[in-house]
């Protein structure tokens, strides 16, 4: 398997595209800052979220039992899957028993982690991904490259070509509005015909036995309400104790992800509608092992907002595929080694350890500390020879290429963007516990020039 450094090298071959990827995600990160700064209680919210998750993880067994009891009372069917294989088998069984052939799925990183689509395809069952970005990459037989923006590695002409081939749109029409409308017509047909809808779960509430799914497009709702069977797949760490805690997480999630004040739809599913079946699949797949590791258990608090991706100078310039895993970015770099520390030995090295990820994380995961701890762990396990050598070389290659950049004002902006930790650590100690805002251009320039001379 190719490692991060090699894959990153392939990604940055097309340098205008790499620049576009970098700048676009940096722009998303800016929108996140603006949204966060609009709330004076932002740091308090992060602290509450972190404490709620800590509490939930430390009482997970009893909350899971409470959740199951309530969900059963609500009329849902609850399944437990020890690993990916069992998760896929459970879903396959529901499909087979009900004689289903038309299936739609909204975004779920868990089903990516379990490679559900491949599993079902091998059995001759087609699943239509309905998130626009996911449908685009599905047509192209590619995995998502970002957990919130699945097709962020593609340009509109790529989408246009793909849609021309699969949806017979006009050749060369690159208008996002036109292309989105074509997808709308195509997918509305799929929704209306759907017999079974699979969704992920953003939050599961122990006290009510319900699950919450967040989308902007409305695709989860179109599928689940049209179909006679809804399957919601969740990692067991999605559990939170009470409905009122949703307020904390819904305030943080979209602001951290895209800078929106909330996603368009935050749908709360409790009971199946008359004549419908609601199945909830609770999955472990290595999570209980992570829970038992004091250094790494915090990674289970993740709400998959991708703020750490967008702020990461390495992710922005190496792309999602360089992480060769279903969850990329800084969080992927600490989650994946839990599953296979040898296969993912390179990932903890795909970081500058600048700490910006930890500073933007809405649930306060100590991401960069865990990256550091993973490096030590991997060294201990003896996988370091490969990982470190290529990993560090790759980092240097991705980051230290000022030749790729314009000079002058642009260059300064590049330093800020690429090494946000410089600001964090030296310019303004007040920001130590926070992400780095972009300082006024002039003062930064002064500061930078001064520091250059030293």
């Amino acid at each position, binding site marked *: 398997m190719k490692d991060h450094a090699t894959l990153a090298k392939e990604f940055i071959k097309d340098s205008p595209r790499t620049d576009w990827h970098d700048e676009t995600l940096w722009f998303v990160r800016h929108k996140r800052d603006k949204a966060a700064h609009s709330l004076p209680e932002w740091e308090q919210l992060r602290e509450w979220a972190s404490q709620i998750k800590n509490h939930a993880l430390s009482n997970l067994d009893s909350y899971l039992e409470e959740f199951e009891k309530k969900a059963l009372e609500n009329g849902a069917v609850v399944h437990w899957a020890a690993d990916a294989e069992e998760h896929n088998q459970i879903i396959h069984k529901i499909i087979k028993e009900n004689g289903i052939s038309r299936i739609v799925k909204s975004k779920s990183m868990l089903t990516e982690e379990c490679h559900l689509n491949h599993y079902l395809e091998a059995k001759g069952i087609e699943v239509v991904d309905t998130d626009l970005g996911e449908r685009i990459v599905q047509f192209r037989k590619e995995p998502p490259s970002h957990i919130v923006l699945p097709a962020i590695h593609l340009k509109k002409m790529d989408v246009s070509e793909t849609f021309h081939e699969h949806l017979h749109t006009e050749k060369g029409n690159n208008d996002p509005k036109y292309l989105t409308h074509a997808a*709308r017509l195509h997918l509305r047909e799929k929704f209306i015909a759907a017999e079974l809808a699979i969704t992920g779960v953003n939050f599961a509430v122990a006290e009510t036995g*319900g699950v919450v799914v967040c989308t902007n497009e409305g695709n989860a709702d179109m599928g689940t309400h049209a179909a006679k069977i809804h399957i919601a797949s969740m990692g067991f760490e999605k559990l939170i104790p009470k409905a009122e805690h949703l307020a904390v997480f819904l305030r943080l999630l979209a602001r951290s992800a895209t800078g929106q004040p909330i996603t368009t739809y935050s749908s709360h599913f409790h009971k199946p509608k008359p004549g419908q079946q609601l199945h909830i699949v609770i999955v472990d797949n290595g999570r209980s092992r992570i829970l038992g590791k004091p250094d790494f258990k915090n990674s289970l608090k993740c709400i998959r907002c991708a703020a750490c991706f967008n702020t990461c100078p390495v992710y922005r310039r190496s792309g999602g595929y360089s992480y060769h895993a279903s969850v990329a970015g800084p969080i992927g770099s600490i989650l994946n080694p839990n599953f296979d520390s040898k296969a993912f030995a390179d990932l903890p090295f795909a970081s500058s350890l600048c700490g910006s990820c930890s500073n933007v994380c809405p649930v306060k995961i100590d991401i960069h500390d865990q990256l550091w701890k993973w490096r030590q762990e991997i060294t201990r396990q003896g996988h370091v020879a490969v990982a470190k050598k290529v990993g560090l070389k790759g980092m240097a290659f991705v980051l230290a290429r000022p030749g790729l950049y314009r000079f002058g004002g642009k260059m300064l902006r590049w330093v800020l963007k690429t090494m946000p930790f410089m600001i964090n650590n030296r310019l303004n100690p007040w920001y130590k516990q926070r992400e780095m805002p972009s300082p006024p251009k002039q003062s930064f320039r002064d500061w930078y020039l001064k520091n250059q001379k030293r």
Partner: protein
Amino acid sequence: MSSKDKILSAIKESKPASTALPVIDISAVISFDDLKAQFKKVLETIGGVCIESVGKGEMEKIVAAELSYVQNGVNTLGAYDEGLPLISAEDLASVDLAVISGTVAVAENGAIWVSETQMVNRILPFIAQQLIIVIEKKDIVTTMHHAYQKIDVAETGFGAFIAGPSKTADIEQSLVIGAHGPAGLKVIIY
């Protein structure tokens, strides 16, 4: 041993020492001088349109005017087709406009809670080409914390916060309104 028992016993063995839940002090969060003005401002930034009407009578007039040029209007405020809960997605796909009422509107983010009872048919607010949500001025609250105090999420089988029209930016980050669901959302405050 069943997978359930396996998972639960693995968790029991590996879970960290119990930590306390935080006390969420709502008095410590943001406040706005004018809830309606704040709600309107945010709704407009997320692609919605806000119509303010003074009294219930005027609200009804506005809804009636909207419905007069709409083919398949569904008005849950007055009488609606009793068969509506059972109408299939296929038939509802051609609904041009749905008018429903909401329970509570949130000033900080422009979201409105709509319960299953208010939707009448679960798919209606998601499948209609245009959506109007009617809300009483007194039901606008400051933040999501306040909203959850006013609703019972499990009261009906389904409920959702709806904030603006359906949207996507999955093609080169260009915002397009009307991904799968309504391409327009109007909120009438009375």
